């Protein structure tokens, strides 16, 4: 028989202490930051990961709260001090911070996180006063490390940083050039990256069209721009299909997707998250996006994806993942708890007694054996191809 260690009780006591100290956080029922969390995530506002603070999916009041939380902690806490340089382009007197840059890019609605990261790194190059490639690389490395440690929960941020650093350190395109032209070339490439990401979505939408047949029913979990683009293209191609959207608690991401689809005159049905198994027999295929695609070929996505994939697998329905290739990350999670948890408060509507623990993490890992195919801008891939692509790039 396995018993929980006494530390569990200690944890609970600690939790009660924190709860009584901030009475306003009871209804949000945020667990205290564990030791590991504080180490991994330098962002002090641990009740929610940095990942959610500027996301478009959050409700407005929550956003206000989150922004207030960010405001309380100036960037001086963050380990970016050493590579700070004066921004060349105006911002008189204000020190350059890669994280501010990243957040300003992220505010653009159609820009993916990885793209924002790459744009922010390009800004680092622009602001840099390095005179050799080596110096620039070191500076970039530091900036990307600080970006990554600022939000350890965002897989695509990590993947975007890694991809760009890889490009800078190992590109054949820079071999023949002098330093200044190499620098401008890097900036230009980074700026093109936004286009690449838009094009990637279109490629994915084109690739997936063959798989959507007339009269099919598609189950979608979570809100993903790629999946929306896929469905939009299918609707434009005059395909007849209907979509089941899960509600996507606690963000209501499914509600958002269903409104978008209703605008396109696609028949939509909204399900509560627990109705997935109930309606699975009517479903022909499951479509999900991904926050990150990991080396095993599995995906990290919104909480509930694993569950949906398991149900679909049991009922022999294909699970298709639509994800841009810059979301491929060099991670190999072995189980659900293997990643830095992305915490997200849940509003239950009624006050929760402080003794009740609430699971607030918002991402789960779906192992590759439950996925049928991945639609990426590199083509239609089986999950095992992902590791191959990553090995080719990083070996």
């Amino acid at each position: 028989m396995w018993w929980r260690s006494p530390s569990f009780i200690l944890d609970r006591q600690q939790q009660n202490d924190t709860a009584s100290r901030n009475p306003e956080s009871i209804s949000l029922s945020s667990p205290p930051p564990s030791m590991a969390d504080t180490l991994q995530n330098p962002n002090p506002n641990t009740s929610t990961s940095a990942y959610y603070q500027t996301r478009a999916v959050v409700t407005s009041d929550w956003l206000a709260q989150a922004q207030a939380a960010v405001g309380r902690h100036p960037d001086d806490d963050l380990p970016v001090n050493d590579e700070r340089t004066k921004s060349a382009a105006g911002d008189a007197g204000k020190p350059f911070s890669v994280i501010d840059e990243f957040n300003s890019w992220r505010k653009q609605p159609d820009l993916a996180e990885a793209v924002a990261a790459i744009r922010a790194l390009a800004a680092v190059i622009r602001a840099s006063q390095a005179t050799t490639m080596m110096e620039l690389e070191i500076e970039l490395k530091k900036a990307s490390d600080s970006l990554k440690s600022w939000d350890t929960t965002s897989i695509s941020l990590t993947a975007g940083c890694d991809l760009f650093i890889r490009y800078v350190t190992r590109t054949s395109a820079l071999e023949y050039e002098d330093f200044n032209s190499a620098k401008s070339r890097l900036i230009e490439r980074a700026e093109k990256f936004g286009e690449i990401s838009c094009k990637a979505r279109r490629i994915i939408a084109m690739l997936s069209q063959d798989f959507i047949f007339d009269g099919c029913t598609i189950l979608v979990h979570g809100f993903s721009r790629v999946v929306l683009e896929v469905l939009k293209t299918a609707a434009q191609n005059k395909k007849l299909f209907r979509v089941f959207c899960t509600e996507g608690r606690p963000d209501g991401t499914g509600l958002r997707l269903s409104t978008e689809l209703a605008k396109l005159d696609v028949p939509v049905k909204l399900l509560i998250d627990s109705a997935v198994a109930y309606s699975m027999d009517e479903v022909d295929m499951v479509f999900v996006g991904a926050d990150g695609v990991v080396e095993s070929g599995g995906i990290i996505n919104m909480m509930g994806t694993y569950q949906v994939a398991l149900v679909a697998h049991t009922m022999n329905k294909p699970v298709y993942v639509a994800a841009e290739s810059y979301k491929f990350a060099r991670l190999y999670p072995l189980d659900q708890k293997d990643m830095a948890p992305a915490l997200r408060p849940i509003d239950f509507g009624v006050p929760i007694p402080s003794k009740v623990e609430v699971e607030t993490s918002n991402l789960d890992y779906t192992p590759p054996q439950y996925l049928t195919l991945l639609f990426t801008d590199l083509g239609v891939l089986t999950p095992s191809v992902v590791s191959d692509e990553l090995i080719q790039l990083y070996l």
Partner: protein
Amino acid sequence: MPDTQSLVNDFLNKLRKRKIEGSQATAKQTAELLRSVISQTRVPYTNQAGALIDAVKAVGEQLIAANPIELAVGNIVRRVLHIIREEDLSLTNAAIAGLNLSGVSDDEDGAEGDEQPVLSAAVLAAAARSTLRPPSLQTLLEDVPDSAAVPHTSSSGGDSEGKSKSADKSSRSRKLKHDVIEAVNELIQDIVTCHDQIAEQAVEHIHHNEVILTLGSSRTVLEFLCAAKEKKRSFRVIVAEGAPRYQGHLLAKELVTRGLQTTLITDSAVFAMISRVNMVIVGAHVVMANGGVIAPVGLNMVALAAKRHAVPFVVLAGSHKLCPLYPHNPEVLLNELRSPSELLDFGEFSDCMDFGSGTGSPLLHVVNPTFDYVPPKLVSLFITDTGGHNPSYMYRLIADYYSADDLVVQRRPTPGN
């Protein structure tokens, strides 16, 4: 080129009337036809590869449309297109090497910009290489995303060559065509000899006193089993007859004449026999990019039986059977209904076929599908002429054999994006 056209029409007719049996024969004849198309095509001085590709694509489109179920046709068309691209690239690279050695001055290229000619040629070659390679993470940042020239890089490579070395170009055009035909000949040779190369691996897979089960008849399987027999392996073969065509009967006879211990069973007895079988070895019609197999009808049942009893399910397939497409709804879209006379003799049920039953349609239907789709998770191993591979590794072989540009042969004017 009237004679090529008549050849093409001849072949189209055969395909439409389903006169050609088996993917190997189809593949071989397609390759031979494309070889003659290439040799008849008159190539212009510039953009020779482009002209060849267009000619092959034009014919390929018709061939694929003539029998969309026979995926081997499309496979060979794509293989030949890939060969053309590859040969063009290697010629361009050789020419660049020549340029570097002879150190041609930039007097002619000066108009193009202030870049060094060597550099621009290198960039061109890199671009051409990236079109050949399937897209990967590595090329995501490197290649120029919006350049309209990318699909035609090979041709523009030819252009710049033509500009700088005008004396060389006629010989070069002849060389390209010659090289391509040579490579297509090699391809035909590969198709012809694929049985032998697969059979060579037989001893690694079949061991002493094993019991092998197969269904229907496949020449690859026959050669494979006989190769093991020749290497002094003694084993027993169980042949399921493969209704409704009963090709298993032929295979059983053939095996017996070669001196193999053979047992013939009905298809419905597969589950009864599977528990004493050590390995299932079957042939395939086509192997899809996800590792799924289009195979003679009845094989899905065998695969399920093998899975149920944890018996390895091994599929033998020559490389011409690898198809770069993904199956969607394969049970319907990639299937063909054959004549009902294979199930019933005409006349035997003629009273059931009576149209006078009021509704105007007969009460009895006879459906005779040709193929089964075996999903990749039921396949343990593929043995191709290059060795044994896992189903999830198929995409890798496919990336070696085909260019990403050729996957869709029909839609020639790519939608501008």
